[in-house]
């Protein structure tokens, strides 16, 4: 009975079983966000694309979905950046170099980098949104000639909340990436823009047919940013977003991440606006 053999083979592995992984670097980026560099068991390499996520386990404390913020072109490790926002992430923040966590994944669909070849990119990040986008930006940097112009628009609450501040300088220098930042509230040293991120978009020079806009931020941000991008005539399927949802399995089973009939963990977290438009009213980012 061949079926049974196949079945038994399948049962030997469980998609619920995390891999032993070691934190090889850990540092606070702001007073709320911590950066982790993680090496997987036996130098296993995770085959992932920018925009995908992993389930991170700390036994006894549970498991949570975390965006990968390194690029597949960064070999030998994955990076995660985590905000302290609950009992699991609070525990994760207590861990440091040498500590062990469990990793499952990668899960979901990432940014459609293959479709973006040869195109200009406008990357819009609000707050923590820069975390999954860092994966994309590093990928662009390592494959710079495959893409047209790249501009990053970044918004955060105050200059202190700015993530990857040092790195952005490197992105600008090494990869001819244009970078524009705005804060809600400035401090005396701040010389950049003050105000909403939506105000930066009208000033951006966009050739809509060959431009992909990639937007990641808090739920409230999307509809305003998307409205501005639509004014620039960027086609629906070239406006790309990544959505956050509660997740327990990553396998399209547990039900928590559903938007109407769609499991975000499997069909997302990355969607284009054409897909978003099809939701009848359960997608906060669109409504």
């Amino acid at each position: 009975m061949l079926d049974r053999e196949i079945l038994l083979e399948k049962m030997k592995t469980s998609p619920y079983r995390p891999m032993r992984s070691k934190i090889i670097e850990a540092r606070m980026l702001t007073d709320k966000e911590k950066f982790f560099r993680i090496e997987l068991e036996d130098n296993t390499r995770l085959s992932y694309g920018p925009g995908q996520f992993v389930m991170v386990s700390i036994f006894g404390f549970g498991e949570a979905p975390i965006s990968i913020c390194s690029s597949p072109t960064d070999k030998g490790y994955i990076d995660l950046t985590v905000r302290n926002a609950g009992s699991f992430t609070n525990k994760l923040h207590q861990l440091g170099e040498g500590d062990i966590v469990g990793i499952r994944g990668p899960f979901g669909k990432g940014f459609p980098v293959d479709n973006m070849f040869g195109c200009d990119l406008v990357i819009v990040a609000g707050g923590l949104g820069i975390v999954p986008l860092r994966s994309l930006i590093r990928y662009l940097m390592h494959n710079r000639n495959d893409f047209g112009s790249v501009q990053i628009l970044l918004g955060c609450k105050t200059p202190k909340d700015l993530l990857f501040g040092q790195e952005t300088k490197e992105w600008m220098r090494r990869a001819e990436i244009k970078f524009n930042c705005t804060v809600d509230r400035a401090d005396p040293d701040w010389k950049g823009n003050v105000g909403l991120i939506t105000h930066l978009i009208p000033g951006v020079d966009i050739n809509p047919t060959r431009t992909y806009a990639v937007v990641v931020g808090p739920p409230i941000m999307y509809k305003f940013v998307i409205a501005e991008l639509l004014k620039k005539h960027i086609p629906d399927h070239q406006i790309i977003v990544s959505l956050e949802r509660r997740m327990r399995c990553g396998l399209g089973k547990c039900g928590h991440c559903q938007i109407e009939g769609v499991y975000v963990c499997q069909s997302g977290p990355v969607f284009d606006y054409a897909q978003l438009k099809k939701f009848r009213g359960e997608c906060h980012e669109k409504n």
Partner: protein
Amino acid sequence: MRKTKPRVAFFDFTDCEGCQLQFANMGEGLLQLTELVEIVNFREIMSEAGQDYEVAFVEGSITTESDIKRIQEIRKKAKVLIALGACAATAGVNGMKNRFPLELAKSRVYGDKAGTVNTIASLPLHKVVKVDYFIHGCPVYIPEVLQVVKCVLMQKPYALPNYAVCVECKMNENVCRYEKDQECLGPVTRAGCNSWCINNGNRCYGCRGLVDNPAADAQKDILLKYGLKADEILQRFNLYNDSLGEKYGQEFK
């Protein structure tokens, strides 16, 4: 694995000590527990009373001015303060007193000696001091107590279930009490007890308090479906949940 065992003390205020009794009756579980913590003060199982502790389990409601001073002292010493049982967590049955003007309650209970009695409204602990962990129930459900103890030792918060007792009751495949013509408070009461009472043929008395977001209007439909009077339900609920009477009164009238 652990360097030193945290020192644990038990205290009680206005209560029946029934929750502490649940500890004492744990049997083997209590022995396992003592491998994790050192119990320095527990009147029901030991004679000496240590005053050097890190974790305080506090049973009972606050009902006098001196109670307030005493719980504040306990709070000062304890790194972790746990409200043990309904009286401590919601004021429980003691809350019934708050249904009446204080003077009336005093004279009903103490008659002509009422003037000599020093008493205030019944309060759950968190109305007076900061509470780190809540263990609901009258009495507490030991498997939940163990979960909370583990949380204390692992220094993580205990996530109180925020759904109805019905959920656990259905998982236990009990026959709904309403099908047996009994009023049961399961649909609006916070789970976490594994539907202990219903599993044993009883109904839910609401001893764990309401879920965070109980249905205000919907209760009427239950009454309609099963032909019950609002007053009956309200009375049932008052047994354990009167200390916050204003809120619950609104929900059920």
